[in-house]
């Protein structure tokens, strides 16, 4: 019976993680004091919930072996290897096994499809960039687009591209431009594209789960702050703040822009202008929380 209780506990953990806890985490202000650790916390919440859900399914499926979780799972694998994995399987066992296996397969499938789709979109973007970019003078290590709108972005990949437009060059002073390029370099060096990748996949698939709705946006905002911190190490944070305001207000398009407007820009400006931008204590707390969130379901499974 104890594995059924474990299954219930694991389900409850997964539910709390992707539900109330995610909603809460998206609202707490202190995480901005250590964006990197906060991103790790978001990642461990997602990973932990996935492990707990699969663990719950497995618990139900291996209860019949009466050998605990680890012993039961190894018995299940022995059965798989011997070619009769489903012998003696009752309805709850089958349901549990299906849940665990399905979740595993679905997550793997989505991961592959997201990776392929993203890689294709990036390859096309990179190809078009190499065809239409201009050779005019520009900050070193960047690609320039001859376009009047002010944009600056990082195209992630094996060799990330930092793209700025002619409009950006015209809009910003040299200090500001250097800070913006350093910000984008931060995205490239810290491989933020790889951090967003799994979240994009999750957002598509589990739209009814609060985590999938709030995590991508929250993490995107945190990654911007992490890149801001990177730039602020070598440049005046006030230059970056000025650039941020100029860029964000340069292309206000009244009706449709509201849909994609987010609170991240005002928050980032505020953050850059404050001295207490980052806190070691918050970083330690968030890292500890990330470890604990992962450890709870894992230790539960091992202990049984």
């Amino acid at each position, binding site marked *: 019976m104890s594995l059924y209780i474990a299954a219930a506990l694991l389900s409850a953990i997964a539910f709390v993680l992707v539900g109330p806890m995610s909603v809460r985490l998206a609202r707490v202000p202190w995480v901005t004091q250590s964006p990197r650790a906060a991103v790790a916390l978001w990642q461990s919440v997602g990973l932990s919930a996935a492990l707990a859900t699969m663990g719950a399914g497995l618990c139900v499926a291996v209860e019949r072996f009466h050998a605990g979780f680890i012993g039961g799972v190894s018995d299940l694998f022995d059965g798989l290897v011997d070619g009769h994995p489903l012998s003696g399987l009752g309805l709850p066992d089958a349901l549990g096994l299906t849940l665990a296996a399905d979740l595993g397969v679905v997550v793997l499938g989505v991961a592959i499809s997201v990776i392929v789709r993203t890689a294709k979109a990036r390859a096309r973007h990179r190809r078009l960039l190499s065809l239409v970019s201009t050779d005019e003078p520009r900050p070193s290590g960047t690609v320039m*687009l001859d376009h009047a709108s002010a944009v600056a972005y*990082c195209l992630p990949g094996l060799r990330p591209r930092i793209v700025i437009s002619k409009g950006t060059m015209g809009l910003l002073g040299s200090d500001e431009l250097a800070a913006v390029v350093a910000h984008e370099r931060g995205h490239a060096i810290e491989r933020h594209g790889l951090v967003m990748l799994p979240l994009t996949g999750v957002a598509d698939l589990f739209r009814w789960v609060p985590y999938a709705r709030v995590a991508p946006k929250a993490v995107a905002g945190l990654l911007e702050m992490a890149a801001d911190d990177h730039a602020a190490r070598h440049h005046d944070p006030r230059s970056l703040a000025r650039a941020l*305001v100029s860029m964000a*207000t340069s292309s206000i398009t009244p009706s449709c822009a509201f849909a994609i407007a987010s609170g991240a820009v005002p928050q980032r400006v505020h953050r850059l202008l404050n001295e207490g931008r980052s806190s070691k204590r918050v970083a330690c707390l968030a890292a500890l929380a990330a470890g604990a969130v992962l450890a709870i379901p894992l230790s539960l499974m091992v202990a049984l």
Partner: protein
Amino acid sequence: MAGLGQLERKVMDVLWDSMDEPLTGRQVADRLPDRAYTTVLTILERLRHKHLVERTAAGKVHRFAAVASRETYMAELMVEALGSARDRSAVLVRFAETVSAREASVLREALEALSEGSDGSST
């Protein structure tokens, strides 16, 4: 690799300059005097494979044309960069998203306070 990229760009430039009239491989090669005809043909095939160039056959002659204008591709990049594309986050990480009009005015105030602050400290 960088050399090939440069060459693809030159070939596309030739085709973009002649959007109204598809060119034969020979005509493209003639406009790139420092490149061999066979090299140009290889590049044209590569670009066709990437769906950037299309080939039409008129009799025995193959003619090549850009699938879309330079401006169209530029627009595609800018749409992704300024992005309402839903999976934009998968493609790139952008410096600053557009803000609402109200946020803009708050930000401008913050900016003014900032420049006043720096003036104060410098005097």
